[in-house]
């Protein structure tokens, strides 16, 4: 790079130093492009990049602050060493992005000339791509769009020789360019082959533990969830939306307990052998937020497993790999179904008892058993017990000790759904009724602006299922016996908390403002769902649907890939040829028309030699085909006049028409 400066022409535009506003503009847009990364990276790298960016902004006004080349080299080495010590998985996406950002930050210190700007803009575009490895929400997409337009405007500006009269002009130009690219983007979006594993399923979840259900329950684990307003999933029903009492969303089913913890049973996770008969069916599409859990959530009771998942023996819907990206699936559930049988294994698991069962609990159950003729009556008595004794539904239950169920049942009597569900399940087992604990979600907020259900983490719920001889597995929700309003309508967290301060930021205020706020929230969420539905959720199967809808069902992935690469190759070749041709003159319409005329004559066996002049050619044509004279002579005559005499556009038009109408035939 240390070339003799005299060899560089003074006016080489690439070597021109940058103006302040050019540097600032680039730094702003580059910062915009990189900003989403800062929240997911190791703080060291986030701060490093941020510091470098700020330093560069200061250096815009004090250019002597820019480091020399050797210093930059030392800095680069230092950061590389830091990187190797700090990053656990160097080859992971997170490591890659860390390296990219820090090196980009160092590159910022090198920007002095226009040439550097071109390179850095490319770097910026790449950074934008990497953002979508871990972010796909509409606001981030908008931010990236702005950054891209901004960076295009930088390219527009720097490709101009003279400075702009108005700087907004470049932005406008860039926006127009982006708009012009829109049809191409649309075609690519619709037709570009979809990867089965999405780009963003690179495991970026190293740091981001997600809130959500887990595969085991300890008292208090769900009440943690209830404090989270994060969206768990959204549901679009094909038919009418089921009433709140039927909105039980089935998640993990827990069998084993040690009196404190409830966990799943590996035996029950084998594929289901029995498929229930449905009496009432609901079809719907779910947009499940990434949960990092290897299961899907479906409306109770799932009729079958969506593509890529398995229905287990206890009707969980299990996936091979954790759901690390937005997952969209079509599902069918039975809101009413024929009785489900029980097998010996379920019988055994459904009656398993922990070691910390106390005599008080046994006595309570014995009391119910003596007065009941059937298991169903025992269930009824238990629910009545919860309903009539002074049990309180509370999100802030007192802490429980080693034998939590006993303490809850007889002493504190304050608890949340998991307390009621676990203790009820255990009591049923004591009574000899096979039972299991089901976790999932209950309810959901109906968004009138999109006509879909929005289920948040705060809708997490736990309930019980008992097996009754004549009715099979039956869902029993003891929480409903204590706080029926929890089931009937969405949870109002402020009310549920009862005492103490509010746990969530809720838009406060009276009537109008509150309704307004809610409308905005609903509107934004509906937008979000559309985004997920149409943009993020456009996966391989959606693409297949689209293609078959367009009557192109026979187009498969392989063909699409071949097309995509073929088209890319063709576009590349055309661009290449175009750029090579640019130096040369384009053939004028006259020459093209004459070429056509000659090709048509060649088609009947009289081809013009390259050096043959028009009059010579005419003579030869007419000597072979005197019958063509009435057509050929005027064409050649006017061609000669236009090409070698004084040309006129109208004359060319006339000649082109005449040639277009000239279709010589071979002599029969």
């Amino acid at each position: 790079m240390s070339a003799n400066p005299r060899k560089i022409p003074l006016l080489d535009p690439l070597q021109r130093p940058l103006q302040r506003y050019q540097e600032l503009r680039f730094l702003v847009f580059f910062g915009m492009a990189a900003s989403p990364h800062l929240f997911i990276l190791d703080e060291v790298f986030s701060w490093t990049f941020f510091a470098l960016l700020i330093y560069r902004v200061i250096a815009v006004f004090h250019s002597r602050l820019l480091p020399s080349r050797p210093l930059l080299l030392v800095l680069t080495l230092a950061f590389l060493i830091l990187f190797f010590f700090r990053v656990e998985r160097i080859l992971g996406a997170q490591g890659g992005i860390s390296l990219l950002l820090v090196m980009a930050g160092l590159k910022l210190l090198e920007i002095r000339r226009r040439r550097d700007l071109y390179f850095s803009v490319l770097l910026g575009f790449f950074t934008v791509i990497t953002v979508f490895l871990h972010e796909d929400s509409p606001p981030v997409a908008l931010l990236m769009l702005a950054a891209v337009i901004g960076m295009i405007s930088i390219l527009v500006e720097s490709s101009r020789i003279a400075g702009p009269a108005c700087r907004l002009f470049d932005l406008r130009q860039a926006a127009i360019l982006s708009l012009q690219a829109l049809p191409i983007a649309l075609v690519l979006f619709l037709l570009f082959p979809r990867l089965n594993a999405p780009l963003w399923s690179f495991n970026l979840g190293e740091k981001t533990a997600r809130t959500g259900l887990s595969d085991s329950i300890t008292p208090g684990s769900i009440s943690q969830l209830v404090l989270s307003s994060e969206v768990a999933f959204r549901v679009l029903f094909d038919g009418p939306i089921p009433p709140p009492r039927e909105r039980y969303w089935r998640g993990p089913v827990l069998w084993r307990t040690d009196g404190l913890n409830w966990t799943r049973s590996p035996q029950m996770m084998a594929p289901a052998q029995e498929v229930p008969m449905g009496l009432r069916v609901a079809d719907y599409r779910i947009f499940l937020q990434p949960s990092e859990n290897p299961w899907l959530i479906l409306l109770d009771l799932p009729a079958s497993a969506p593509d890529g998942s398995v229905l287990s023996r206890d009707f969980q819907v299990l996936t091979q790999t954790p759901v690390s990206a937005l997952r969209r699936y079509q599902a069918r559930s039975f809101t009413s179904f024929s009785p489900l049988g029980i097998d010996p294994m379920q019988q055994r698991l459904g009656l398993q008892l922990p070691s910390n069962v106390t005599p008080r609990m046994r006595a309570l159950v014995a009391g119910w058993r003596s007065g009941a003729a059937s298991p169903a009556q025992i269930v009824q008595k238990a629910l009545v017990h919860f309903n009539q004794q002074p049990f309180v539904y509370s999100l802030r239950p007192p802490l429980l000790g080693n034998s939590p169920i006993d303490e809850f049942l007889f002493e504190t009597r304050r608890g949340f759904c998991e307390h009621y569900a676990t203790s009820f399940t255990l009591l049923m087992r004591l009574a000899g009724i096979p039972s299991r604990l089901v976790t999932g979600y209950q309810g959901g907020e109906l968004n009138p602006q999109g006509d879909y259900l929005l289920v948040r983490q705060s809708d997490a719920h736990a309930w019980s299922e008992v097996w009754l001889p004549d009715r099979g597995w039956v869902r029993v929700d003891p929480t409903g016996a204590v706080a029926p309003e929890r089931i009937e309508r969405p949870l109002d967290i402020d009310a549920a908390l009862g005492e103490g301060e509010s746990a969530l930021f809720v838009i406060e205020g009276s009537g109008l403002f509150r309704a307004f706020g809610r409308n905005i929230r609903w509107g934004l969420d509906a937008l979000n769902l559309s985004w997920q539905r149409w943009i993020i959720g456009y996966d391989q199967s959606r693409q297949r649907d689209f293609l078959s809808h367009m009557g192109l069902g026979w187009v498969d992935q392989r063909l699409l890939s071949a097309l995509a690469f073929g088209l890319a190759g063709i576009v590349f070749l055309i661009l290449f040829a175009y750029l090579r041709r640019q130096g040369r003159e384009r053939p004028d319409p006259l020459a093209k028309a004459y070429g056509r005329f000659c090709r048509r004559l060649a088609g009947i066996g009289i081809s013009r030699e390259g050096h043959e002049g028009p009059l010579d050619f005419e003579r030869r044509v007419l000597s072979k085909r005197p019958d063509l004279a009435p057509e050929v002579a005027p064409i050649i005559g006017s061609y000669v006049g236009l090409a070698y005499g004084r040309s006129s556009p109208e004359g060319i038009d006339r000649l082109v028409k005449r040639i277009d109408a000239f279709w010589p035939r071979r002599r029969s």
Partner: protein
Amino acid sequence: MNSTLESVIHQASSIVLGKERVIKLSLACLLAKGHLLIEDVPGVGKTTLAHALAHLLGLEYRRLQFTSDLLPADVIGVSIFDRNSGEFRFHRGPVFSQVLLADEINRATPKAQSALLEAMEERQVSLEGTTHPLPEPFFVIATQNPGFQIGTYPLPESQLDRFLMRVDIGFPDRQAERALLKGEDRRKLLSRMTPVMTPARLSEAQRLAGSIHASDAIYDYCQSLLAYTRSSDRFYHGLSPRAGVGLLNAARAWALIGGRDMVLPEDIQAVLPSVAAHRLQGGTDAETGGESLVRHLIKSVPLP
């Protein structure tokens, strides 16, 4: 104007029988204000052709037979001391004429040749500090015997370049030769003819030829031809810019003779052998003569 030119050609054809193309080329050369070199074996009518052209165009005509002992003074004239007036007086040589027929130019020594060739280029003669302009129009029609004949001093390339065209006449065909044998003496015939043109008419014709339209396509073609001779291995050296200018002017004159107001590629191709053959030398293949080189050139360069 066209009929006048046609009549010149027609009448000349009645003197030099069966050589209409050569006559037309020669006329084109004169219309393009170029000097003409006629090369052929003795006795095919070189001198007659030159004579006929000069006569029909109404030009003053002198003939100078080049020999090996010809001196420059014999061509351009000499200053002689006049005893009566007591000073030197310049006696104009044969070069001071409208048409100089330099017969067998390659029989003279290079010294005498170059005296003439300087006059051809400058269209003036400088002697002892005085510049004597040559008459207007001024043409040199030179004839030469083919170089392989004994006792010749072939013209060097630089001097050949000053002739716009070199034409050869060739033997007459059977029919023309019969007419020639039966007919009168050509000189007598010619002396009975009245000139068709005057010098003023001729310069008007020259002006008209210069105004013939050449389109960009023609310039492109012209330049492609020149470029090809300069880049291809087949040629020892390429055509000079002077050759390019001459080619275009000759093609214009040819178009005028053909009755067109614009130059066509055919015009270029028609005059190209005469304009280029004597300037081209084969590169790798020394056997190749100028004519076959020009044929190759025409075939190799496509029209734009």
